[in-house]
Every structure is written in C-alpha cells, then in structure tokens.
C-alpha cells in the first residue's frame, strides 16, 4: 500500500474547500498526489469539451447560408489579444478563451461509400482526431461510423512525455451531460475513442461520477484480495486469446488491459470516505453540467486524473431545450432553419461551458494557483453550423494557460485554414514534442506560433 508521506499530509490540509461537496477531512487520503515542493510546478492537464450542432449560420458558411442574411454572432470583430467577445462568446469572457476562426477540415473525402462529406461525419472526426472517418465499413443509412485513430484526449493520455510526471489513478475520465441521442450507438454516444471500435462511454450521472472517483472499497485487505482476483481473471484471458481471430483477440486484449488497469488502481487506492453530493436535479442541462464539473475539478486538483472529456450534448443532439422555449429537438431545429432558436441554444451551451470553467477556476492548488492556469481545454463541435451541415468555419476554443505555455484571450483568424493546426497547438502547449499533425490531406507542421509563448 502507498504510504502517505509527511509532506503529503502537510500539503493536504492546504487544499481549498468545495461548494456543495463535503470533502473528507484528510484531502491527501483522497488525492494520491497532493503536493509539490517549493518551485515545483504541477503538471498540466488536458480536457476536451464537445457541444452539438455548431453555431448559428452566417455568410462565411457559404452556400444558401450566405443568402440567409443572418449576422455572424460567433467571430469576434477584432483579432489578436484582448479581442472584444462576440455575442456567443460573451458567457465565456471571464475565462479569456483563445478563439480560432475561419478553419475547416482539409482531409480528402473518398467518393465511396457516399455520405462522408457530411459534417456529422467529417467535421466530427477532424475536430476530434485530425483525420477523416474510416471509410471501410462506413454505412450512411445506419450512420455506422468509426475513426481511424484515437481522439486527441487519448493521444495525450497515452503520451509518454505527458505521463512522465507520474501515473494518475485514472488515465482519463469521461463525462456527458445530456442523454438525448440521435442513435444509441457508435459516435452518437461518445466523443472519446481509444481506436476504431473502442470507445470511452461518458458517465452521465453525477452520482455515478462520484462513485467512480471517490468511493473506494472498504479496506486494504479487501482491496488486495480483489486485486488477486483480477490477476486470475487476466490469466484466463491470456489462455483464451490464442483461439480467437485477430480482431476479436484485439477486443479481448483491450478488455484485459482494463482489468490490469483496475488491478493497478486497487493497489494505489487508499481508504477514504466521502459524503455523497446532493442528488442531481434533472431537467436543466446547466445544473447537471455544474454538478459534474465540480466533481471533475476536485479530481483534477487531486490529480486523480489529468485528462478528461466532456460531451455536453451528443452529435446531432435531439435534446429539447424547452427551458429556452425551443419546442423541438436541437437537430431538427437546425434543419428547420430556426436561426433564432439555434442562437438561444448555442448561447446556452456556451454558458454551460462557462459554468464548468468557473468550477475549474475556483479550485486552487497548493500554491494558490487556479486550476485553469495549468490546463488546456479544447472546445469543439461537429461542424460550422447545423442548418446545412457546413464544415466551413469549424469552431475551436482553447481555454487555460498550460502553466504559461498557452496564450490566453487571443482571437486568431485564418480564412480556410487547416483545423489540424489547433490540435498541434494544443499538443505543443502541453509540452509534447509533436512536429506534425493531421492525415489524409489534413497534414500540417504549423502550430499557431503566436499562441505558444515558450515555443
């Protein structure tokens, strides 16, 4: 079992308190890594934030959208540092998001099978992986879709430079807020992938997130016996794998990797007891979003994890924003061309994002630094706008300071620019030595240097 060092015990008592969540008395018991010596900087964290159905359409989306005569409520009027926030970005202003506009996927679109140009497919995949969808097996009528590679959160979570500062209890944590779904399968359900058929399904209930993060089995003896048991389970998996075909063997291997990961976690866990948060009040998206963000913020401060994804709403979301007076599901509302309703919903989704950032900012680490100063959070959606599914003007937000490696509050615009540059910028801000990013026509070697003060 891990022994709590005296330093850990000392630093643990410095931790700030959290509104609405009763923390255990000894914070360090909960937080396997709680403390850094003077001058040490806590390592950065990375998060993906996804919202559905783009932003209200405007002239730059091209096509029929150009003749709709609707104003651009997303792009700030000026570029550079200290830009004046647009109407849609106003809810986020306090967190000084860096906003990148004018970008689009540069990936090639195979002719067969048809349907790959659609924003739900192409924009989604480029926004999360930097690559196109996997053409083999893509089936448009059923919208069955797979990526070619892991999503950016998993690239970071498995990067050896990123993990060099020490293993966390959870490699990554995945949450979702709205449970409305366009389909109950595939990428309509989750935004994080380990690989083509391996997803990280989001946890959708604050209570379940709490259990995952903070409830630890009763005592050290029980934990070590459960770990032995998992060892036996993994042994059986090993003896079975030789009978299977390659694809099924890979699925079983991944399952057994998870079993090993649970086993590892049990040897890290310490006996802590937490008081459960208040039961969630269903209905309003922002209420649940805030509850989950609060738990996530504690987990990040404690370094239970350093990578997360949050799917506020799922791709092509059918969420009904009746609280905003929008009577139909969001996807249909977009298709019906109801711009004013999309305006209200987008603004509300940004306010939910801001609520999450508020909670990250409220967490101060042992040196009194707000959590958000340490992290990089990439905000993405599936396409530019949902009326015609244009992937032009694919929005990107980079929030957080990455321990001083990422410029905050800057508007960068590049008309027709390659979206993969956003990913490369985020990776470099995290201190990861990537020289290039993007595939299948979307390759780039150019991060946005103006956002990387330390290079």
């Amino acid at each position: 079992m891990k022994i709590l060092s005296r330093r850990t015990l000392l630093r643990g008592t410095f931790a700030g308190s959290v509104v609405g969540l009763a923390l255990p008395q000894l914070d360090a018991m909960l937080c396997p890594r709680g403390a850094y010596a003077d001058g040490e900087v806590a390592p950065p964290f990375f998060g993906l934030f996804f919202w559905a159905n783009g932003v209200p359409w405007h002239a730059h989306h091209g096509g029929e959208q150009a003749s709709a005569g609707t104003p651009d409520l997303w792009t700030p009027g000026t570029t550079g540092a200290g830009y004046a926030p647009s109407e849609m970005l106003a809810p986020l202003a306090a967190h000084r998001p860096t906003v990148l506009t004018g970008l689009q996927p540069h990936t090639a679109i195979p002719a067969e099978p048809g349907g790959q140009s659609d924003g739900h497919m192409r924009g989604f995949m480029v926004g999360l992986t930097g690559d196109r969808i996997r053409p083999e097996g893509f089936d448009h009528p059923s919208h069955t879709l797979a990526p070619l590679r892991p999503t950016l959160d998993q690239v970071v979570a498995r990067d050896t430079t990123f993990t060099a500062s020490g293993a966390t209890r959870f490699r990554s944590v995945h949450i979702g807020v709205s449970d409305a779904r366009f389909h109950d399968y595939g990428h309509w359900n989750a935004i994080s992938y380990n690989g083509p058929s391996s997803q990280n399904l989001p946890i959708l209930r604050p209570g379940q997130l709490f259990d995952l993060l903070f409830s630890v089995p009763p005592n050290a003896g029980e934990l070590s016996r459960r770990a032995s048991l998992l060892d036996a389970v993994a042994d059986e998996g090993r003896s079975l794998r030789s009978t299977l075909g390659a694809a099924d063997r890979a699925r079983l291997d991944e399952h057994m990797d998870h079993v090993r990961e649970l086993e590892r976690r049990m040897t890290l866990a310490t006996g802590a007891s937490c008081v459960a948060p208040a039961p969630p009040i269903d209905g309003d998206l922002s209420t649940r979003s805030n509850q989950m963000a609060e738990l996530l913020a504690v987990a990040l401060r404690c370094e239970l994890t350093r990578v997360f994804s949050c799917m506020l709403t799922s791709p092509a979301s059918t969420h009904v924003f009746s609280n905003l007076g929008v009577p139909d599901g969001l996807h249909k509302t977009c298709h019906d061309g109801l711009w004013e309703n999309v305006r209200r919903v987008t603004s509300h989704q940004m306010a939910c994002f801001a609520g999450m950032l508020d909670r990250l900012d409220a967490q101060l680490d042992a040196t009194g630094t707000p959590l958000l100063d340490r992290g990089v959070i990439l905000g993405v959606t599936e396409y530019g706008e949902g009326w015609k599914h244009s992937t032009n003007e694919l929005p990107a937000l980079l929030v957080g300071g990455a321990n001083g490696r990422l410029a905050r509050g800057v508007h960068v615009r590049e008309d027709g620019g390659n979206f993969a540059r956003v990913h490369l910028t985020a990776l470099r801000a995290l201190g990861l030595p990537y020289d290039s990013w993007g595939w299948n026509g979307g390759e780039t070697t150019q991060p946005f240097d103006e956002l990387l003060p330390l290079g």
Partner: protein
Amino acid sequence: MRFPPSITICLLLLACNGSIDSEPARPGPRIYAPGPAVLPRLTAAQYHASLEDLFGPGLPLLPLEPDTNPYLFFNVGAASTTLSEVGAQRYDESAHALAAAVIDDPERRAQFMDCEPASPGDRCVRATLGHLGMMLYRRPLSDEEAERWIGIATDLAEGNALTGLRYALAGMLQAPSFLYRIELGSPDPVPGHEGWGRYTDLEMASRLAFLLWNAGPDEELIEAAVAGALSTPDAIHLQASRMLEDPRARRAVQAFFAQYFDLGRLDHVGDRDPLRYPQFTSTLTASMRTEVELLVDDVIFNRDADVREILRTRRTFVNAELAALYEINAEGATAITFVPVELPDDGPRAGLLTLGAFLAMNAHPTETSPTLRGKYVRERLLCDLVPPPPADVATTIPEPGPTPRTLRERLELHRSRPDCAACHDVIDPPGYLFEGFDSIGATRSEDNGIAVDTSGGLDGMPLSDGRYLGELLSSDPRVSLCITRQLFRHASGRLETDAEDVAIRALAQDFIAGGSRFLDLLLSFATSDAFRMIQIDGSER
C-alpha cells in the same frame, strides 16, 4: 466493425407480385456458405437473465456498460464494440455484489449447493465450483480453470470456506468465458465443406439458449450437449421444441421484436407540450410499448398465427390512457391493467401501424413526420435501405409562408425538386397514409387549420389510409423475408454475407409456405446450416 460493404438493396422497387423473387437478388454467389465467427459479449439483459435463471430472482443487478444497437440489434453491438474501462469496473462491482448476495444467503445457497463446506477448498467447495463453472461458462471447466478457481477459493478464504467460495464466484463472473460467447466450431468433415466449421454440441447448447431464451443454457441442455445429443437437426429440434414451451421463450421473442420494431426509440420520445397534447403523460410511451409486447405475444404464442397479422389485426391491448387516446371503451382497463379489445370496424385503427408506438416514435414534438413514418415502413418492415440525401442537397422543408399549408403540402413542394424526389417519392407516400394521426397518435382531421389528406400508397399502389397499408403488408412476402433476415442478424451478431443470403431466402420461402408462423421459423432456423455452421478461417488463427 467488420460488416460486408455490399448490402445495399436497390430501392427502385416495383409493385409487389406476391413472391420474394420480386426483390432484386444480390450479385454474387448462389450457393450457401457460412460466414465469419464473431465474439459477442453478453448484453446486459443476457447477463442479468442468465444469473436470475441460475440463482433465482431478487439479485442485486447493478448497472453494466450500456449496450448499443447498430443495425437495430444489441447482439450486433455486443459483437463489434470493445468494453470500456468503466465497463470493466462495472463488471467488477457487479460481480462482488452478486457473489455476496448468492453465497452469504443460506436459502439461496441451498438452491445450487447440496453440501455445506467445512474448510477452504474442500470437496464441497470443489464440487460447487465445478457446477457453477459449468453453468456460467456454458461448458465443463478445463482442469486448469478448475484449479485456478479452487486456488482462489483457498488462498482468499481467510479461514472461511464460504468467503473463499464468494471470491471464486466473483472471479468467474468476470471471466471472459462467462462474459463472451466463445463459439468457434470444429472442422466439418462433410466433403465439399472445406473451410466450414460446425458448432460443437456445447456451442450449440449456448446458441440455442441465447436464441430461444436470450440467456445461457439450463442444466438439461448442457447435459444433452455433453452426451452428444445436439449433433443432428432432429436432436436439435427436440431440444428447441422443449425450450419454446418454456416461459423463457416469450422473453426471448419479446427481446427480438422490441429490437426489430425499434421500440427503444419510444424511450426518447421527448415530452410533448401539455397545452397542445393534454393526453400525453409521462407514462404514455411505456403504455404504448406494453401494448405492442402484448400484441406480439398474443399473435405468436396465444394464436400461433401468421406473424404479419400484427400489421392488420383489430385486436389489441389497452390500459385506460390508451383507451382514451384511441377513443374506445375498454371495460376493466385501469392505469396499470391492460385488457384485450377489438378495435371498431368503422374506426381508423387496425394493426401495428395505427397504434400509438409507431405513430409517436416516428413524429416530432411539434409535428408529424410522413418521412419518418414512411422510412420506418421501408426500412423496418420491408428491409429496404433508403439511400442518404445526395451531397449538398437542400434538406430543409419549405417554410409555411404567408399562405397556410399542411406539412404534406410543404413536403410535396420539397418533392417537386428532382434531386429530392428520387428518395422522397419512395419514402413519403406510405407515410402520408398516417396524416390522420397527430404526433402522439391521436386522430386528427386538420393540420394547420386545413383538412388532412391521408391518401398515399406503396410502390405505385394507391391507398386511402394506413389501415389498407397494414392489410396489404400482412400478405406481402417481403415482410416475411425481412423478419427472417433480421432474425439471422439478431442471432448472428452481424450482417449476413451474400453467401448467407442464399440460406436466408430459402428459410423465408419455407416460412411463407408454412403460413409465416414465427415459432416455426425459429425451429427451422435453429436446425438449419445457417445457424449450425461457421466459417473456419485458418489464416487468422
């Protein structure tokens, strides 16, 4: 995902001429050959049902990784997705909760143990683990496996034999041999069947159980397999007939039809505006689902009728709120009591397509959708594939504008564009037949203040409203073929290959010739090569 790419069926359908041969045949082989093996993980429903069958009701059933249903079926999701890390954790938590409930309760323990262990790893512990292992793994344990769990039951016992047993059970409940259906087949010795595998008797026991009970096999079935009594179609027929007599068969048939009819979408029918739809309650869609379940059960088990009767029958089952929605009298119906009723001859309803479930789940919160309703008829009942809208096509329905218009009139403007008409001419006409029902399935005579027009049709055959479509489909062989195809996908956990399509068509011919009785289809499928054979691909092993 490993689905064959060539599944698109041309949608330019001609009028039905009474034979499945009117559906364009696929290019490719005309001779059956088995398709590739899959490795399905148990769905949450199968996991829970298997354990309740084994240990009795009232177990702590913790939530597991949610199942997904690509191509409609959870078995397809279970055979193509990879478990997430949180999913592995849920298995762990579930296993410990179940093992404690089963082992710590003397009464429950007595149901599967006829001895009381005296010391860790003793004869009683060994016998119990051997029995539980066989039931969970759906085959006898290998020596190595038996030793592994006896070792756990000894090492982790802390001096208490039952504690050790509890850990060993929690381990077996997380073992891949329980959680995955490992069905590999062994080479079929029949000349000409090179590359064919035949499922072993134990694998057949497992396959029959998941097909007919949607759970693992019982002891009798495993014993039959061990005795070599599942090797011939006759022997399989004997066991399958016994299994269809068991109440568990009803559960499995319900699971198939709920997925085939896509009833899960009823859970996502959002709340309706109470001012506009005062009859919509928080329980209404669940009532609609129960109605369809009772109807399916009645046609298949009580009446053993042509399964397509579901599409035309005036008999249905309503509780009080459905009776009110349908404006009929239903004596004895309460909020929770469903009673059988005959829908009136002169009323607008007859068959599934005029019931609440179909009408409400294929509509939007504010308006109906002839497109969604027509697409359901095409894709679900006829197994047609509707191609995607061409790239950059306008998918917006024209706004109402200054002159009031019905939704139908707006859709017809949309269809006047040739690029839209290609698909919507096929999808929308069957959907128009239901314009007399609003977005929650209540009757209506006006849309946007204008009288509704329910005329439409199928494949060029003009019809005046939805009742006639149900009547037409209830004798359409394409519906029987579609059910056969979907049953194959459900049972196989994947789409069929072109060579397997040959067997599906042959099964469908027999199904239709015998009056399209679903229990007959289950029996003929269970004894067919399409269910008993698998491709053995030496290159991958």
